[in-house]
């Protein structure tokens, strides 16, 4: 984002300077034209003045000639003729220079020719010898008349020149009255544009400085993270195949930063001989595929001489200037690799252990049961046929054998059930707890009617769970209540369910808003000391002697297992002679 902004800015600045440049050229051309015009005007003014002066001069020379001539005529003194002779020479010179000045103007030339003719005519009246007074008078008079028309002719010419001057001046003024404004305003605009450009440059410069600082920080943090994350980054110039390694890339190889020339050959020296092929093959087709495939290889670390596992991946990156580079990351994954190896080993062990457990299960379910079944069958045969013939002692021993074998049968069955709870499939489905209780009651019907027990339950909830396990759970808890019921009172079990939030039940140690279904079993039986509340769930743990309450101590352990399978909690509360209460929390 920053980059494109900067590049837009550069475009902006470029156009600003281009505009300013053209404005300046425009200004210069306007100024040049203006000066040129001024020059022309002043030339023509000078011209006009020169003509006026020359004409004035002309008149004054003729006057000099007249005066000289008159002096000579009156005094006959030849000294008076001197100005007259000079005047003729001067008049010719003046005409020459006038002719030069106006040679481009035909109208003026004609005027000049007329003036010249008049001057010539005037001079023709300057005679030194007059035949008579009449001639003198006529000449004098004619001379004056010629002089008058000459004057008026010159007057006309002068006024034409003056008129010309005024029109030129007007035209010039008209043409250039706007020029200063235009020049000034374009100058202002160009100053403004340049100012804007300057401000933009300053802003960009400041941005660059901030970006530079940020880049420095980023660079520093990426250096740190490279060290922490055990990875190094590198750049490969596709054209000249030169590499650029980050400092940590060198460190990963066990070298000091920038301590050797970074190139493919030098890199290959570090790579395990068996992995060199993978490595070079990966770099061969980078240009076509535009990326380096993820490769795993081993290297020999230079300083510690240990074998490390590396992982490298890279991508082609084309910058704005069209340079083709490959940006890559190499990571030391030795720890991960070792951990994975360890996990794989552990997994294998686990699979092995599981297999052994399954085999043990089979042994328990089949091979252990078989001899026991035979013992029991033989016992039953003796009981049916031979028991009566036994002595009293043998009879009591026989009964003990029978009891012991029955106990063993129960123990094996319970153990099998416990292990089956552990490994059975955990496919959860919606389970109606009312159905579960009904099934449990029908399973325990014999026991219930024997104890004359009452099982109360009303509108229990549905829960996600494994139906047959939940049934087992309910059967075990209810049968536990039946087993430890009082002899003088009918057993009553109350079953309730209620939705609760986890954080409202501190003993769940779960502060979340997760919802649980709390199922309570409350009985009016013998109860137990609260201090045993946790112990009763342990496998083979029993609070009573075998004689009074036969059992294996597996039933409630199975309950705990089932609840744990459902990611729930089970708690027991007891008070001696008042009853026991089981609380089960199952996640909804």
């Amino acid at each position, binding site marked *: 984002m920053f980059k494109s902004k900067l590049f837009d800015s550069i475009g902006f600045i470029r156009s600003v300077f281009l505009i300013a440049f053209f404005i300046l050229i425009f200004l210069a051309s306007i100024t040049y034209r203006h000066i040129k015009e001024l020059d022309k005007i002043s030339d023509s003014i000078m011209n006009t003045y020169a003509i006026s002066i020359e004409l004035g001069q002309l008149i004054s020379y003729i006057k000099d000639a007249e005066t000289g001539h008159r002096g000579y005529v009156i005094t006959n003194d030849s000294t008076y003729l001197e100005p007259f002779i000079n005047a003729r020479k001067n008049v010719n010179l003046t005409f020459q220079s006038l002719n030069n000045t106006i040679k481009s103007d035909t109208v003026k030339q004609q005027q000049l020719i007329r003036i010249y003719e008049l001057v010539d005519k005037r001079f023709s009246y300057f005679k030194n010898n007059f035949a008579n007074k009449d001639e003198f008078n006529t000449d004098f008079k004619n001379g004056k008349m010629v002089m008058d028309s000459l004057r008026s002719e010159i007057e006309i010419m002068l006024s034409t020149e003056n008129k010309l001057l005024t029109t030129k001046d007007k035209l010039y003024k008209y043409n250039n009255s706007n020029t200063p404004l235009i020049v000034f305003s374009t100058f202002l605009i160009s100053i403004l544009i340049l100012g804007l450009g300057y401000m933009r440059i300053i802003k960009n410069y400041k941005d660059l400085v901030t970006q530079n600082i940020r880049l420095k920080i980023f660079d520093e943090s990426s250096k740190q993270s490279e060290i922490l994350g055990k990875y190094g980054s590198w750049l490969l110039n596709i054209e000249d195949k030169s590499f650029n390694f980050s400092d940590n890339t060198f460190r990963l190889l066990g070298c000091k930063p920038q301590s050797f020339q970074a190139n493919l050959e030098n890199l290959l020296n570090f790579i395990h001989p068996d992995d060199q092929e993978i490595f070079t093959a990966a770099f061969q087709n980078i240009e076509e595929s535009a990326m380096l495939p993820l490769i795993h290889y081993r290297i020999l670390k230079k300083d510690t001489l240990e074998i490390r596992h590396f992982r490298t991946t890279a991508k082609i990156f084309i910058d704005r200037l069209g340079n083709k580079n490959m940006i890559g990351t190499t990571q030391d994954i030795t720890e991960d690799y070792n951990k994975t190896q360890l996990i794989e080993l552990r997994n294998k062990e686990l699979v092995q252990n599981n297999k052994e457990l399954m085999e043990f299960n089979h042994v328990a*379910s*089949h091979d252990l*049961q*078989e001899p*026991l*079944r*035979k013992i*029991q*069958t033989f016992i*039953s*045969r003796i009981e*049916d046929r031979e028991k009566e013939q036994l002595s009293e002692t043998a009879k009591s021993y026989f009964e003990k054998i029978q009891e012991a074998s029955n106990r063993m*049968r129960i123990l094996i069955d319970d153990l099998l059930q416990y292990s*089956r709870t552990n490994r059975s499939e955990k496919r959860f489905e919606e389970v109606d707890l009312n159905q579960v209780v009904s099934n449990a009651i029908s399973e325990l019907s014999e026991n219930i009617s024997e104890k004359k027990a009452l099982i109360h339950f009303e509108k229990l909830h549905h829960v996600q769970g494994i139906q047959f396990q939940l049934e087992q759970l309910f059967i075990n808890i209810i049968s536990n209540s039946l087993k430890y019921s009082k002899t003088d009172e009918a057993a009553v079990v109350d079953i309730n369910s209620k939705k609760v939030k986890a954080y409202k039940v501190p003993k769940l140690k779960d502060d979340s808003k997760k919802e649980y279904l709390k199922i309570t079993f409350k009985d009016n039986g013998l109860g137990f000391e609260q201090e045993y509340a946790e112990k009763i769930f342990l496998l083979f743990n029993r609070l009573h002697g075998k004689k009074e309450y036969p059992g294996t101590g597996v039933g409630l352990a199975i309950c705990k297992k089932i609840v744990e399978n459902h990611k729930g909690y089970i708690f027991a509360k007891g008070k001696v002679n008042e009853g026991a209460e089981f609380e089960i929390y199952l996640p909804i």
Partner: protein
Amino acid sequence: MQKDFILITLADDDEDDRLFFTDAFEELKINTVVNTVNDGVALMNFLNAPGTVLPNIIFLDLNMPLKSGIECLKEIKANPKFKDIVIAIYSTSSSEEDIENTFVLGANIYIKKPSHFGKLKEVLSEVVTLNWQYITSGLNKDNFLLRM
């Protein structure tokens, strides 16, 4: 004469179990002819032998050397010659896996060997006296495992 007898074959490698089995039928006083074979191979040889009168019911132990009960079951069910024979699985194990497998393979009933001789007699008499034609038509997994 044969029509009055139910022909029963037991395949079981355990000598004691074969003894209980024959003893039980002796005491039951049902018109049965019981013969026993010691393993799966012997069972298949017996069934395939020319001139063998096929049994009405085969009691099949699962865990036998040489050829397991499951293998025997597969072979029997694959041969149309034996389609009328009722197969009763007779095993110590009552694992879900075994029950499921044998049911899928087409066994008719699953009996867990009882550990009381009296119970054994009850179970065997129940199986033998079942009206198999009726049962077979209504075969389902719920009553596959015989509960007594």
